[in-house]
């Protein structure tokens, strides 16, 4: 977790930097700061990623599986990390869309339809959310 002082410094820096790709861990991010000799790099993405907001994978697994189990159409006994929504949980396309909407609510995310169409299993959802920098 980020210490309070560093957090303040970090948000101050974010206001100055335009497009910066930072490492997912804090040390890597600090190493890039100009006074440490780091160079500002322009990356493809126009978004700024804040380090340290990737969720712990174990948390993601637990929360994703809970969302799936909470769905009234799902048999909780069949839910596992490897469960496929269609083949194992007998969900159809509309059911899966609703499940994605439940993930969005749980993790405070917006998942575009093009990405949502690829989430056909618990594992795919876990991977997507665990590697999403803005998941909460």
């Amino acid at each position, binding site marked *: 977790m980020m210490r309070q002082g560093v957090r303040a410094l970090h948000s101050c820096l974010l206001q100055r930097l335009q497009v910066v790709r930072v490492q997912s861990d804090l040390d890597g991010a600090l190493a890039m700061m100009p006074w440490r000799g780091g160079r500002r790099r322009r990356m493809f993405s126009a978004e700024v990623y804040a380090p340290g907001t990737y969720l712990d994978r174990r948390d993601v697994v637990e929360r994703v599986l809970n969302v799936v189990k909470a*769905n*009234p159409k799902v048999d909780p006994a069949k839910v596992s990390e490897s469960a496929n929504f269609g083949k194992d949980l*007998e969900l159809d396309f509309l059911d899966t*869309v*609703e499940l994605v909407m439940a993930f969005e609510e749980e993790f405070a995310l917006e998942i575009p339809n093009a990405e949502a*169409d690829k989430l056909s299993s618990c594992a795919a959802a876990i991977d997507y959310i665990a590697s999403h920098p803005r998941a909460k």
Partner: protein
Amino acid sequence: MRRRLAMWTASHLMRPLPGPGEVHVWCLFPEDITGEDTALCKIYKELLSPSEKTDIAQCSSNPKMQTQKLLARTLVRTTLARYASGIVAPSSLRFTKNEFGKPNVIWPVKRLDDWRPPSLCFNLTHTQSLLMCAVTQKAEVGIDVEERERKFTRDLMALARRQLSPEEADWLSQFTDPNEQRCQFMQLWTLKEAYVKALGKGISKAPLKEFTFTFDASSPTVLRNLKQAVTIPISLSRAVDNSDDAWQFLLLQPSASHYASICTQILPSSTFEQGSLQLEGWSNHNNLQVQLWRTVPLVRDEELEGAVALALSDPLSS
């Protein structure tokens, strides 16, 4: 059982092909196949290919899904074989998929005296309680069925905003009764799915939000061949494929508890050779001719009772 099957097969060898503008729809209600018919299910299993059998065996923890898959493959195979004048057995058909997953059939016999394999287009859809296979000659076809009483776990309008076009979502938001809103959503949904399936290019080439179905309740039209003669016109905005294809849509209730939509390509009359047409008073076909059967494959067929047409489109050219 065996004697019953043999008699049926003999008398149903010659099923005439669907003519131009005609769609044949074969409906299988799992409730018609009762628990005692495990012998029948064993016979169905014998119709399947090795890979289909493996696919079924792989969901052994899920008997309901196994039955669904068995019935789906049985329906497709027996349906197509009906149109082969007894020359081809259901088990000898092979299936491939195009790059977008749309299935295609490969006939095992390319030629026998004067007989050639028919140019059939087909599409399959199913829910737990009803499976439907639509067949046409040469015209691309898509079909989708949903249960009327389908349960939603989220707010319906949120789902509508996400999956329907903005105009469709606006239209849906006018319905204040939640039941009615749900029914209208399901009807729209089957129309959209049938269209995407008919196009056969996958959802990425026909994004659901980019085309709109509109119902026009002010001018009902007449549809032949279905029990309810009065239907409400529907129209499709901006066909999403770039070809000159024209498409026609029919929305119906195949039973009191289901909605289904059929989408089919309208072909120029030159597509069909003179000799194969059964015109007889049929001048220009701007109405779909749909025939629906209720079938227990290899056992019995009867006309589907109680199907109700809800809406029909005018032929659309893009």
